[in-house]
């Protein structure tokens, strides 16, 4: 218990100092909200609009969740195929890399026009596409970076490639998969949020941030940003919890990733 406290309080202290300095700056320089809102303003906006914040966070979070789910499934599937068939790997890896470089701001309007703008589909798709690459890359690495001695062992046991995949490669890839998920989960929240700037239902965090900013209500805008940060953190912590569930505690300390 002591050790937990001892590593928690330095970041909290730093955050407190930072916020304190920010507040001081605004007060001393008498900075107007349209230039820089004070933390106190942001906090009051946050608590006043708490119900709205959570509503918006839930909406964006749902988009992020489905995008994360589909992107992860697609990434897993692609990685399994690419590992098995070299030709698939050669085709898919540059494609995945190319997709990863297409910015959300270009992708979203295209998808909005392809699919019904009033539905969640375009945003979920954008999120899935963004999530796909980190999952794909990490799972591929996990499937391929197997101890060669273990591969020799499997050959000595007359294991078919499919058996080696099931018994060796996939369990080996699990820590790598979680590495990818830890990157992908907050990314999914960001993607879902940014995609909201480009049209569609307006209940989410991205729409709210844009709307507040357009009305120069920066205090409110930052309050929504805070809600977005919290949402991203929740996603991240959920992945960590999942990892704890799937892999035994001691394995993580020992794991090579």
């Amino acid at each position, binding site marked *: 218990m002591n050790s937990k406290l001892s590593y928690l309080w330095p970041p909290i202290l730093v955050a407190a100092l930072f916020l304190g300095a920010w507040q001081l700056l605004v007060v001393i320089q008498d900075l*107007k*909200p*349209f*230039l820089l809102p004070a933390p106190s303003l942001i906090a009051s906006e946050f608590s006043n*609009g708490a119900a*709205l914040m959570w509503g918006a966070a839930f909406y964006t979070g749902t988009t992020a969740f489905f995008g994360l789910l589909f992107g992860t499934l697609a990434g897993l599937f692609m990685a399994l195929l690419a590992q098995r068939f070299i030709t698939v790997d050669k085709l898919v890896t540059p494609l995945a890399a190319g997709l990863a470089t297409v910015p959300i701001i270009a992708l979203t*309007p295209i998808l*909005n*026009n392809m699919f*019904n*703008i*009033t539905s969640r589909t375009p945003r979920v798709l954008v999120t899935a596409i963004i999530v796909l690459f980190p999952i794909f890359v990490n799972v591929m690495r996990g499937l391929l970076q197997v101890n060669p001695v273990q591969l020799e062992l499997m050959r000595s046991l007359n294991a078919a490639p499919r058996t080696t995949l099931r018994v060796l490669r996939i369990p080996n890839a699990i820590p790598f998969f979680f590495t990818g998920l830890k990157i992908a989960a907050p990314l999914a929240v960001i993607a879902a949020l940014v995609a*909201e700037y*480009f*049209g*569609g*239902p*307006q*209940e989410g965090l991205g*729409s*709210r941030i*844009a*709307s*507040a*900013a*357009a*009305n*120069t*209500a*920066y205090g*409110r805008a930052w309050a929504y940003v805070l809600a977005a940060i919290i949402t991203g953190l929740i996603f991240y912590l959920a992945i960590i919890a999942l990892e704890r569930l799937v892999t035994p505690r001691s394995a993580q300390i020992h794991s090579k990733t």
Partner: protein
Amino acid sequence: MNRGKSWVRVAAVAASGLLFLTACSSSDETATETTDAATAEETAAEEGAAECTELTPVTLQLQWFVQAQFGGYYAAKDLGYYEEQCLDVTILEGGVDIVPQTVLAQGGADYAISWVPKALASREQGAGIVDVAQVFRTSGTLQVSWADSNITTAADLKGKKVGNWGFGNEYELFAGMTKAGLDPANDVELVQQQFDMQALLNREIDAAQAMTYNEYAQVLETVNPDTGELYQPADFNVINWNDEGTAMYQDAIWASEERLADAAYQDTTQRFVTASLKGWIQCRDNAQECADIITANGSKLGASHQLWMMNEVNKLIWPSAMGIGVIEPELWAQTVSVSLNTKNLEGATIITAEPPATAYTNQYAEAANAALTAEGLNTTGDAYAPIEVTLNEGGN
């Protein structure tokens, strides 16, 4: 140093001094003051033109990309009106992420074009800006729907998928719906549109937000697959917020409040407003020429779309009984009332308190009107009639 003309110089200096004095006075001016100012202005202008050795550099921040919506300013620049006023004006295009009134307040520009409600919101957040010329008199915001949806008033939006651009552009719509007894959060399904009309054309939404001068034209430039011809106005219904009584003031010239305490900036502001309004008068009477100026300045819009825009913008400005750029108290009050009382989805209003009287001033617009009238120009557009514009496919 011509001895013979020295008395003219003295008179000019005195006149300039008088001009400064009148500029410093509060907004309501008497007729005599106006005439004096006009005479002084006229003389000063003549002398100013002769004396102008160095143009004053001025930056204008627009609200969007170069298009006929800003015709007056580009006309004033290209036709030499700014130069006439001893100004060297640089026009900065706007964009999605550019908030012109913030650029102005932070010192990134000398003047900015902005819709009044958003500018008032910025004012409330501390941006020191003043409306010095209300160029657009009526609102160009429409809610467009297919004729077969039978949406002719705000009340008809109930239960429908209503598109809007978000980004703070939705208040007239919300006010209109609220006035008609609807709760925007629950009685309609709100959808944010992209800055095109695809969602309406694909019938994904029932009503779309559009400007008379831009997006509305986009639907009329689209070919109706059933007829092979362009869509006609008869294919659509529009809700006009001016008719519904919830319209708000739009494009205006904003200046820096802090700098307006400075005499030199006041002088520059007067010159800028005068030249800009002269540009708008020119665009009223020569719409095609102005449309061409816009195109020459880099607008990618097609020729017929540009002319449509110029014509529709003119309809928003003219006729203006009190003179172009002059703020009418009832219209200002309506704008303030909607901004104060209309709640958006989050229950937030545009502003939370009445803006002070110093948020706008008519002195520059009125002085400009006087000067331009003295030049022989018509500043009220009482004889104005819009032209007929034929749109081509794609706006070309």
